[in-house]
């Protein structure tokens, strides 16, 4: 009886498992295999190379630069989103009217295609008639063309797009805090600052960690925004590992090397997830 029920259950799972097996699991194994080969179709090169691609990457300055940009982009974006997310959630929580409209205005940024976000910011950053230079009082800054400004410009666009996700999670948590807790704090004579630091922020801790986990995984693997907004330039200052992988794969047409970079991104995402889960576990947040 139990066996038959298991079979029925597996039958129900079959379409999903077959799809995931054929189009996610199988390519994952394949990409590992590809990353061990030297494949340059335009020169008809196709041979097994073992860890040759990885050995090349280990001494490839472009790879290390891209890794550095990826880490910098991830840390800066996620940190800004966490701070901004908490602040906006607190502002939303205090709102007596119009919080639904306010939430719509925020979520809009999150729901837009990232290619659209890239186009919005490309226009905002226009050196001659961009709104940002205009607001800054007519400074002739070339945001996306200046190697010092391109990465901050990219980070700002990413923060704009993804901070609302953090806001939403924190806001939902704030709404779930019972009013009695605040009344008790008030009875104990806690002022506004003490209530914030001793009551509200500790209660946000758990959800904030989860939000930061999701956002970090997204930031490490993000591709669209930098590919369309800056294309990795100027002078490689915004070239993340994902952009480097794409360029090797489909512009330099070095399938083996590009796949190896893709594998590195995959490993980085898994490593990040593992590290966070360990941290969350020691916090007693997940079992």
């Amino acid at each position: 009886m139990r066996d038959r029920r298991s079979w029925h259950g597996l039958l129900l799972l079959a379409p999903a498992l077959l799809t995931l097996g054929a189009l996610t699991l199988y390519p994952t194994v394949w990409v590992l295999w590809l990353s061990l080969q030297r494949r340059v179709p335009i020169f008809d090169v196709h041979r097994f190379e073992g860890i040759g691609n990885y050995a090349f990457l280990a001494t490839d300055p472009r790879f290390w630069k891209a890794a550095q940009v990826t880490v910098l982009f991830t840390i800066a974006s996620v940190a800004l989103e966490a701070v901004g997310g908490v602040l906006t959630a607190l502002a939303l929580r205090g709102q007596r009217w119009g919080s639904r409209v306010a939430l719509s205005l925020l979520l809009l940024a999150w729901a837009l295609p990232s290619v659209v976000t890239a186009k919005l910011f490309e226009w905002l950053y226009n050196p001659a008639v961009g709104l940002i230079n205009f607001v800054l009082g007519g400074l002739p800054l070339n945001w996306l063309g200046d190697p010092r400004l391109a990465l901050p410009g990219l980070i700002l666009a990413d923060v704009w797009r993804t901070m609302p996700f953090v806001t939403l999670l924190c806001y939902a948590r704030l709404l779930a805090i019972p009013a009695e807790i605040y009344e008790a704090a008030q009875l104990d004579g806690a002022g506004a600052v003490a209530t914030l630091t001793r009551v509200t922020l500790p209660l946000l801790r758990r959800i904030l960690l989860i939000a930061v986990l999701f956002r970090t995984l997204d930031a490490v693997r993000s591709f669209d925004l930098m590919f369309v907004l800056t294309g990795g330039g100027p002078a490689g200052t915004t070239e993340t590992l994902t952009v480097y992988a794409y360029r090797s794969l489909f512009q330099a047409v070095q399938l083996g090397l590009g796949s190896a970079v893709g594998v590195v991104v995959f490993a980085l995402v898994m490593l990040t997830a593992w590290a966070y889960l360990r941290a969350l576990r020691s916090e007693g947040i997940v079992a």
Partner: protein
Amino acid sequence: MRPVSPLGRLRDGLVLVGFALYATPFLWQLLTAFKPEAELMVLPPLLPTRLTWEHFRAVLDQSVMLRALVNSLGVGAITTALALAFGLFGAYGLTRYPIPGKGLLLLLVVGGTAFPQIATVSPLYLLLRALGLRDTWLALILANTSFALPLVIWLLTGFLQEVPAQLEEAAAVDGASRPRAFRWIVLPLLAPGLASAALLTFLFSWNEFLFAYTFTATEASRTVPVALALFPGVFEVPWGDIAAASMLASVPPVVLVIMLQRYLVRGLLGGALRE
């Protein structure tokens, strides 16, 4: 309820203005889409002297964008239907049947939601090319469905756990078969959760860029984000037309956020808060 003080009212108003300012990048592009060509490359003034449809007309006159809208809608609708059907069966199997290795399967599903597309884009490209699917809807539908599935299964198992299994057992006692109980008891209770999962899947497919950019080659299957990224400019960048095209690409997200916000929020929270 305490009456709101004038100071409180002022604070609420200011905060709302702050949130409106947050949407400036979008609103500025919206305004740009309606600016006459001659006023695009001058700033100040901030506001145009008149509004015009010329950019929207120019964009819709080209076959590229119209075709891309059709492609995006079609790929999005079919992806959503497939991912929801497969995901619903899978989630039902996972929550209601004694499946060996269930814990591991769920862990793989959660891990799947964090999967980086760049890692499998090269083998997928080779696979789809070998199957002769390059530059077709089917290529995008298959790739997008597989990528959306982990989130759909994850969301739906959560929502299904909230539907008490006793309801179905009671129905079985009354003589209803499992499919009947599923159709008449589980499905209606699950409807809001299904709506959330459907919206997030459609949005993912609508916004998806890397696969669409890699697996398509011509107008036949190019989606809106790809058409926008490759927007043609002959001598100078057609900012007004790009703005209009961006606004067309934003229609589904805007509708979703304004009219179906409840489901969107429920889906986002459901995906993140389950532990």
